[in-house]
């Protein structure tokens, strides 16, 4: 087996040569922001190239299309990708959610059928967890799946379906038993083809003006029952497991990366470019962001140091989402105030600073302050689970 060092070297050489630059349109920063056909085609092709060069799925079994190497190999390649800030991997739901799950608990047939298409980006996967009327609690999912012979018949709707419009398959959380003893026990997890009668997707236009999610409607949609993962009623447990793959809390992802995290302190460059960095008032404002960014960074270091975490062990982990997402919203918002008259511009305007990135990032920041439990709900959680305050009712 090739050494990790050599593999890293090969990767470095390959990405140095092949990383695309200046593609002429705005590259999505996260897999959730792939909005146009142009972006989609480009990123799909890019993923295929990376896969064919051997730097994606390197640790996945070779019999299904993977590289047959180790996690260390893949990690080394992924690190190189970050170094070169390569475009993100298109098929993230497949690479980080569906794929690891199928390799973990799928049948031999599942593996044969799905893995290679995930890696090559031939088969795009989408995610069907949230529902329109059921808030941020996935356990409330009501989409109904009724077993009928070798099929499930689906009725209901999913929203915020990432890649719904591109997806060939969906990982679906559905209710197979409405009479289960509790809401979680009635759920099942099903690999669902999207190209069947009765499935329709409607693109959601985001407040940024771009597409990036769909709402998906199921009306008597008939799908093969062999897509069931685990057993009926295990859907909640399996959904939580996929979230762990996605968060990297559990190994098995194909590698690559799906979110470019821009350094928020790039705002200092913006302030310099806009000739505002010498303004004492701006300096005073920027220092708040710098100190806050540093605090967030240090909180993460401290969370790993036991003796410094004794008083409120759950505090730092539970505040992490709130603090980071509100920080992102605020710093991007502030960035707009540095741009003078050119703050009037938006994405795709050549006269805009940084291609309108700050405007777009500000608007997109709401996906994180709203999605996955709003900032208001996060405060409730911290109050109740860390500070012992009574529930708000």
């Amino acid at each position, binding site marked *: 087996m090739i050494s990790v060092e050599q593999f890293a070297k090969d990767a470095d050489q390959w990405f140095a040569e092949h990383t695309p630059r200046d593609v002429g349109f705005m590259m999505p920063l996260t897999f959730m922001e792939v909005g146009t056909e142009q972006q989609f085609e480009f990123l799909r092709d890019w993923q295929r190239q990376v896969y064919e060069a051997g730097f994606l799925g390197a640790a996945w079994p070779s019999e299904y299309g993977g590289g047959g190497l180790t996690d260390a190999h893949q990690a080394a390649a992924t690190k190189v990708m970050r170094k070169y800030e390569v475009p993100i991997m298109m098929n993230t739901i497949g690479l980080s959610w569906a794929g690891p799950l199928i390799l973990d608990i799928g049948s031999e047939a599942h593996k044969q059928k799905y893995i290679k298409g995930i890696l090559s980006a031939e088969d795009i996967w989408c995610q069907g967890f949230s529902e329109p009327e059921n808030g941020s609690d996935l356990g409330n999912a009501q989409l109904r799946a009724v077993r009928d012979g070798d099929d499930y018949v689906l009725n209901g709707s999913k929203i915020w379906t990432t890649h719904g419009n591109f997806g060939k398959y969906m990982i679906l959380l559905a209710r197979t038993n409405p009479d289960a003893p509790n809401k979680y026990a009635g759920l099942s997890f099903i690999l669902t083809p999207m190209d069947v009668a009765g499935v329709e997707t409607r693109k959601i*236009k985001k407040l940024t003006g771009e597409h990036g999610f769909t709402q998906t409607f199921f009306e008597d949609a008939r799908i093969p029952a062999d897509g069931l993962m685990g057993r009926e009623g295990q859907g909640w447990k399996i959904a939580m497991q996929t979230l762990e793959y996605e968060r990297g809390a559990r190994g098995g992802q194909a590698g690559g990366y799906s979110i470019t995290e821009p350094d928020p302190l790039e705002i200092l460059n913006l302030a310099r470019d806009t000739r505002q960095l010498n303004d004492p008032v701006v300096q005073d404002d920027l220092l708040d962001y710098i100190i806050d960014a540093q605090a967030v960074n240090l909180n993460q270091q401290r969370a790993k140091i036991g003796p410094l975490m004794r008083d409120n062990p759950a505090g730092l982990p539970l505040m992490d989402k709130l603090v980071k997402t509100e920080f992102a919203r605020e710093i991007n918002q502030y960035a707009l105030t540095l741009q003078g*008259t050119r703050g009037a511009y938006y994405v795709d305007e050549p006269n805009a600073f940084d291609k309108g990135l700050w405007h777009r990032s500000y608007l997109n920041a709401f996906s994180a*302050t709203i999605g996955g439990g709003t900032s*208001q709900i996060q405060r409730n959680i911290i109050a109740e689970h860390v500070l012992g305050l009574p529930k708000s009712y």
Partner: protein
Amino acid sequence: MSFNPQALGRLGITEEQVELMDVAENFCRDKSDIATVRAQLEGVRGFRQDDWTAIADLGWLGIAIPEDFGGVGLTLAEVVPVVEQMGRRMMSLPFLSTTLVAQALLTGGTESQKAVYLPKIASGMVATLALSELNGAYDLNDITATAEKTSDGFKLSGQKILVQNLDAAELVLLSAKLDGKTSLFVFDANLIAASARRREKLIDETKRSYEVSLAGIVLPATCLMDADKTIVTLAHIDLCGNLLGSAELVGATQTCLDYTLEYLRTRKQFGKLIGAYQALKHPIVDAYIGYEKARSLLYAAAHSFDEQGKREVATRMAKVAAGRALSFAADRSIQFHGGFGFTYDCDAQLYRRRAIFHDSQYGDTRWQKKQLARLLFN
């Protein structure tokens, strides 16, 4: 330092203001429901010619133009309630730029320019301003475009950005350096060839603007405005822009709040109306307070606008308060609409974009405060 708030602007209202407020409230509500606004977003022009004709017929374009020039002979204080109602309904007409050009002509136009253009404006000619440049500066004197005197006029070079509604405009007011001194020119929009125009992409999709390449444009000698009045004219444009911009912001804030409150009153989560949660309720109260403060400051600025020595302070304060009010209200409106707030269909984004746009027009909060510091602390 002794500090007398009375010196910073007072509040009052004229009968004409009340009357115009009523007419404008009804007109804008009838002509510009939100569906109509959204229908214009993708259009090239961004507004309906019929609406423009209608407001010309109502005499709104001449409110602050003297009767001698075909206007109504009132003041900007009477224009403010009209713009407030337009802002409230997100009605996107080239009213601000046209009004500003009229004001600029009144302050710094030659007698012949006034006689020729003001009656036309009062009766419906669209006018626009070509002042901003790629340096992004709010300071209207901070420009590099130049005009070179030739035998029969002025040869322009350089570039202007954010020229609003140029496609609809018949008249353009432009700033350029002539012999190193900022000068103003007013001329027929046709002198800017189609090839010299590029439509720009704006954050506020109800608005339209163009980048203009000046190279090759030659203006007749009569286009030059009164050279002795350039400074005072630019200052007047700046303050008028801020005053009317504040009016548009205040109007938009009212609707943004109404829209958000409606959602908080009717949407349930966990079996309870979300407006009952103090986490949403109290910030909206703060947004509402910000709105009422901005409104008071706006009316004071309008009322004091003809009083030299008060108008600049009052206007800049109004702009600070109005910009903040809409920014905060709309930011919270997106958040409090939850998942729906993240969609384009939710109107909250329209208001948030509007607030960002106005920050770029004649100065944002920090800029206004710097000017206020200069006025009050030096």
